[in-house]
C-alpha cells in the first residue's frame, strides 16, 4: 500500500501527461502481481466493492469523530475520502479529542465496535489473509494492495465498517487516502483508462491497440496481461470471449465546409453510445468507457442473438414521439439501474439505432473502409428483431449547404446534431484527425438570474462554483429553472465566487442565497418538461455561456419563453 499511496500522491501533483505515464509505467514494472493489477484497476475506476460506499465511511467515522466536526471538515476539504483519511484518529494523538460526546459519557459501544471480534473472523475468510498470524502481528505487518482488495471484497454490508476500520488502523494518512480512494472510487488523479493503457504499453514495449483490446477481456488483476507484457506468455486468446473493442470517436467539426463526396452524413442521436457483442455464448452491452451495462437493459441482451459486434446509440421510445426516439431525459430513467421493473420496461422501451458493424460471423470488419462496413451493416440489420434494432439512416444531402440547412431544421427531440464519417476510413480506436466529425446543433440560450450558489467539490472546494438560476414566472416571481457548474473560465470563476460572497443574503448549510442581481446567459442542449422543479422545466447540459453584468434582472427571460423551446 505504501508504494501505491506514493504513486497516487505523485499523480495528484503531477500535471504533465508524460510524467504521469512515466510514473505509472515505473510502478507497473517494479511492483509484483497481483498488487500492480489491482492498483491499475483502482486508478481506472474499474473496481467496485458493493459493501463499501461513501455512506459506510461516513457511518464509520461517526463512531470515532464528532459528526459536526466531520461535517465541517468535509465541507472544507470537499472530498469524503480525504476528510476521513485526515480525521482518522491515530494512537497516541494529542489533546484534540474529536469524539462525539455520547461516547465519552459511557454509552454502550456502537455496532461497529461491538463487531470487533467478528472482524478478524471475516478477515480470515479472505484467502490471502489466512496466514495464521496473530492479530498484533497482522496489524503491524505492512498492508499490501491485494490484501486490502481481498478484505474489501470479502466484506458484507454488516461487517464492512469493522473491516475498513481494521485496515485504516494499519496505515498512515497517505495510506488511508489511497485505501479509501481504492474502496470508493473517484480517484481524480487525472488518469483515464486510455492513459493507463498507454502506460502499460510504455512499461512493457507493447502496442497500445493490443492493450486496449485485451484490457477489457481480462478481469483485474490482469495477470495474463502482465505475463504477456513481460514476454512470459503468448498473447491471450480472445476467440471465445465477448470482449470490448475500443470505440472510434469523433472530433468536433471546425472546418468551414466538407465535401460530401468524401464524407457520409448521419444524424447524431442523443442517447448513449453502446457496443453490443455476442461471443462465447453470451451477449454484452458496453458503454463508451468499456463498462458492461447489459444488466440495465435485459430486453436488448435477450434480443441480440446474432454472432456479431455492433456500434450504435441506445435510445428509448417515447409516447409523445409516436413511438420514435425520445429525449435523453426519458432515457435517464433507465440508466444505472440494477433491477429493471416490468413497468420500466413498458414505460421506457429501449432500442438501438445501429451505426456500424465491427464483426460478423467470426470476421473482424474493422480494417475495412466505412463504405464496405456500411454495405454489410445494411445486409445484417434485418437479421435482428426490428422491435429493438434499427438502422441509422444516411442523410441524403445534396451538398454541405443543404446538410447545414437540414441540421438547422432538425426538430426531433433526440437529434443532437450531425455525424460526418470519412467513407474510406477503417474503424480505428480513439479520436483520429480527419476521419469522423461531430457537428452538434447550436445550443439554445436563455438569460437567467442567479439565485443560489454552492461550493464545488475537489479542487473547487473553496469556490462557490455551482449556481442555481431562475426565470420570471407569469406572477413576476423568480423560479429556479436549472443549475450549472461549468462554462466559465478560471478568471470568471474567481469573479463569480467573489460576487457570491459579497452578495449573500442567507446561508443554508453549504448553500448561499444571493441577491437577485446578476444575469447569467445559460446555454443548454435542450429543455424538457419536468415535475422535479417548481418551474416545470429541466434543461439538458446547462452551462454558463456569459456573465451579463450589463443586463438588468428585469430583462431576464420568462418561463413562458422557455416553455416554448420544449421538445
Amino acid at each position, binding site marked *: 500500500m505504501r508504494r501505491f499511496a506514493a504513486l497516487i500522491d505523485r499523480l495528484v501533483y503531477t500535471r504533465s501527461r508524460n510524467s504521469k505515464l512515466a510514473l505509472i509505467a515505473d510502478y507497473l514494472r517494479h511492483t509484483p502481481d497481483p498488487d500492480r493489477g489491482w492498483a491499475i484497476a483502482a486508478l481506472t475506476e474499474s473496481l467496485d466493492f458493493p459493501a463499501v460506499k461513501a455512506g459506510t465511511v461516513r457511518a464509520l467515522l461517526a463512531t470515532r469523530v464528532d459528526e459536526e466536526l466531520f461535517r465541517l471538515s468535509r465541507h472544507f476539504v470537499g472530498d469524503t475520502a480525504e476528510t476521513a483519511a*485526515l480525521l482518522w484518529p491515530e494512537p497516541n494523538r494529542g489533546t484534540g479529542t474529536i469524539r462525539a460526546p455520547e461516547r465519552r459519557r459511557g454509552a454502550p459501544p456502537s455496532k461497529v465496535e461491538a463487531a470487533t471480534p467478528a472482524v478478524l473472523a471475516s478477515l480470515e475468510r479472505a484467502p490471502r489473509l489466512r496466514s495464521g498470524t496473530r492479530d498484533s502481528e497482522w496489524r503491524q505487518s505492512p498492508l499490501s494492495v491485494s490484501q486490502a482488495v481481498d478484505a474489501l471484497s470479502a466484506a458484507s454490508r454488516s461487517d464492512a465498517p469493522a473491516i475498513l476500520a481494521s485496515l485504516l488502523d494499519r496505515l498512515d494518512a497517505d495510506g488511508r487516502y489511497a485505501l479509501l480512494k481504492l474502496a470508493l472510487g473517484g480517484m481524480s488523479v487525472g488518469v483515464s483508462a486510455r492513459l493507463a493503457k498507454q502506460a502499460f504499453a510504455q512499461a512493457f514495449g507493447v502496442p497500445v491497440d493490443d492493450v486496449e483490446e485485451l484490457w477489457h477481456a481480462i478481469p483485474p488483476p490482469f495477470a495474463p496481461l502482465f505475463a504477456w507484457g513481460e514476454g512470459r506468455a503468448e498473447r491471450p486468446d480472445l476467440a471465445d470471449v465477448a470482449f470490448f473493442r475500443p470505440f472510434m470517436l469523433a472530433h468536433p467539426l471546425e472546418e468551414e465546409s466538407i465535401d460530401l463526396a468524401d464524407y457520409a452524413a448521419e444524424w447524431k442521436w442523443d442517447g448513449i453510445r453502446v457496443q453490443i457483442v455476442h461471443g462465447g455464448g453470451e451477449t454484452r452491452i458496453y458503454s463508451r468507457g468499456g463498462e458492461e451495462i447489459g444488466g440495465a437493459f435485459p430486453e436488448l441482451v435477450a434480443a441480440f442473438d446474432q454472432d456479431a459486434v455492433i456500434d450504435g446509440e441506445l435510445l428509448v421510445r417515447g409516447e409523445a414521439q409516436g413511438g420514435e426516439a425520445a429525449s435523453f431525459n426519458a432515457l435517464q430513467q433507465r440508466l444505472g439501474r440494477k433491477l429493471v421493473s416490468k413497468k420500466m420496461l413498458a414505460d421506457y422501451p429501449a432500442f438501438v439505432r445501429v451505426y456500424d458493424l465491427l464483426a460478423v460471423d467470426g470476421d473482424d470488419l474493422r480494417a475495412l473502409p466505412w463504405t464496405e462496413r456500411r454495405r454489410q451493416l445494411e445486409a445484417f440489420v434485418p437479421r435482428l428483431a426490428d422491435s429493438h434494432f434499427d438502422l441509422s439512416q444516411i442523410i441524403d444531402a445534396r451538398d454541405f449547404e443543404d446538410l447545414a440547412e437540414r441540421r438547422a431544421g432538425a426538430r426531433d427531440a433526440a437529434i443532437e446534431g450531425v455525424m460526418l464519417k470519412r467513407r474510406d476510413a477503417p474503424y480505428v480506436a480513439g479520436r483520429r484527425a480527419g476521419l469522423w466529425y461531430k457537428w452538434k446543433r447550436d445550443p439554445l440560450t436563455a438569460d437567467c438570474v442567479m439565485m443560489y450558489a454552492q461550493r464545488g467539490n475537489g479542487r473547487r472546494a473553496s469556490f462557490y462554483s455551482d449556481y442555481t438560476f431562475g426565470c420570471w414566472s407569469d406572477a413576476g416571481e423568480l423560479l429556479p429553472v436549472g443549475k450549472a457548474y461549468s462554462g466559465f473560465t478560471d478568471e470568471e470563476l474567481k469573479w463569480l465566487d467573489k460576487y457570491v460572497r459579497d452578495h449573500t443574503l442567507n446561508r443554508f448549510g453549504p448553500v448561499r442565497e444571493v441577491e437577485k442581481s446578476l444575469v447569467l446567459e445559460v446555454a443548454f442542449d435542450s429543455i424538457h418538461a419536468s415535475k422535479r422543479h417548481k418551474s416545470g422545466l429541466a434543461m439538458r447540459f446547462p452551462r454558463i455561456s456569459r456573465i451579463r453584468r450589463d443586463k438588468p434582472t428585469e430583462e431576464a427571460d420568462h418561463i413562458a419563453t422557455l416553455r416554448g423551446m420544449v421538445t
Partner: protein
Amino acid sequence: MGKPRTWIEPHPSGIYVRPADVWIDPSRPVARAAVTHGHADHARSGHGAVYATPETLAIMALRYGVDAEASHNAAFPYGEGFERGGVRFSFHPAGHVLGSAQILMEYAGERIVVTGDYKRRRDPTCAPFEVVPCDIFITEATFGLPVFRHPPTGDEIAKLIGAVRAEPDRSVLVGAYALGKAQRVIAELRGAGWEAPIYLHGALEKMCNLYALHGVDLGELRLVSEADKAEMAGQIVLAPPSALNDRWSRRLPDPVTAMASGWMRVRQRARQRMVELPLVISDHADWDELTATIIDVNPRETWITHGSEDGLLRWCELTQRKARALHLVGRDLEEEA
C-alpha cells in the same frame, strides 16, 4: 454566546478596549493601536499611535512606512508594557513570526489575552509561545478543524532537500510568505545542514535583511535577479506565493513548484495552487496545538477571532468550555498560513 464585556468590545474591524481607548489589530486607521505582529491583516498604516514590540515596529517601519522612532509610537520588549485608562497592557511571545506577541490586558481584577496569530512548535527565527494564564482567552483559529495536523517540520524540510537532490538539473522554487515563512524555511534548511546559497525573489530581500539584523542567521543568500540560470540548477529558490506561477519563474531552470503552507495538508488546495511539491509548514497552530493551548491556558471563556471558528467552537462545546466566535473582518487567511 456570552454577553460582551463592558470594557472590551469585539467589532468586525478589531477589538476595542474602551477604558484605554485602544484598538487591538484594527483593520482601519484609529487613534491608538496595539499591534500583535507585522502581517498586513493585523498591522496597518495610518494609525495615530502604535504600541508593539520593537521587532514588530521595525517590520511596520519597513513595510508600511510607520515611523518607529516617532514619540507617539512605543516599543515594548516581551514581558513589558504600559498602562492607560486603568488598563495594564503587556506583550508576551506568540511564536508566530519575529516580534509576534500576545497582548495581555489587566483591568479591574480581570485578565484578557489576545493571541493574534500563534504556534506552539519550535521556530528558530522567533521566541517561543508562552502560556499566559487569563480569564478570557481570545484566540485565532486559522486551522480550527481536526483535518489540520501539521507533520513534524523536519520531515517536510527533508522532503524539500530530497526533491532538490533527486533532480540536480532543476531548481526547486518554494513559495513562502515574505514575512516569517521565508525566513523560517531558510533557518530550518540551515539547521538541517543545507549550506549552499539560497536564492531569493527580490520581494523577500529586505525582510531577510531585517531578520539578520535582529540576530537570525540565514547563511548566504543570493538574489535570483543577479544569478545566472545555470548556477540555480540543483538549488533552492524562494519567492512569495504570488510569483509561483508567474512569468517571473521562467528565469529559473525548469523549476519544481513547491509551497510551504499549512493549507498544503489538503490535496485539492495544493492542486488549486498548481503545486507539485506541497510542504506542510505553517506559522499557525494546528488543531492539536489550538486545543492543547486552550487546555494549557484554561481560561474561563474562549473567544475565537478568525479562521475555522465553527470547528474550534464545536470542540469547546464537546469539552464543555465556554466559548464564542467573534466575526472579525479583513483577515486574510489564504496567503500567509
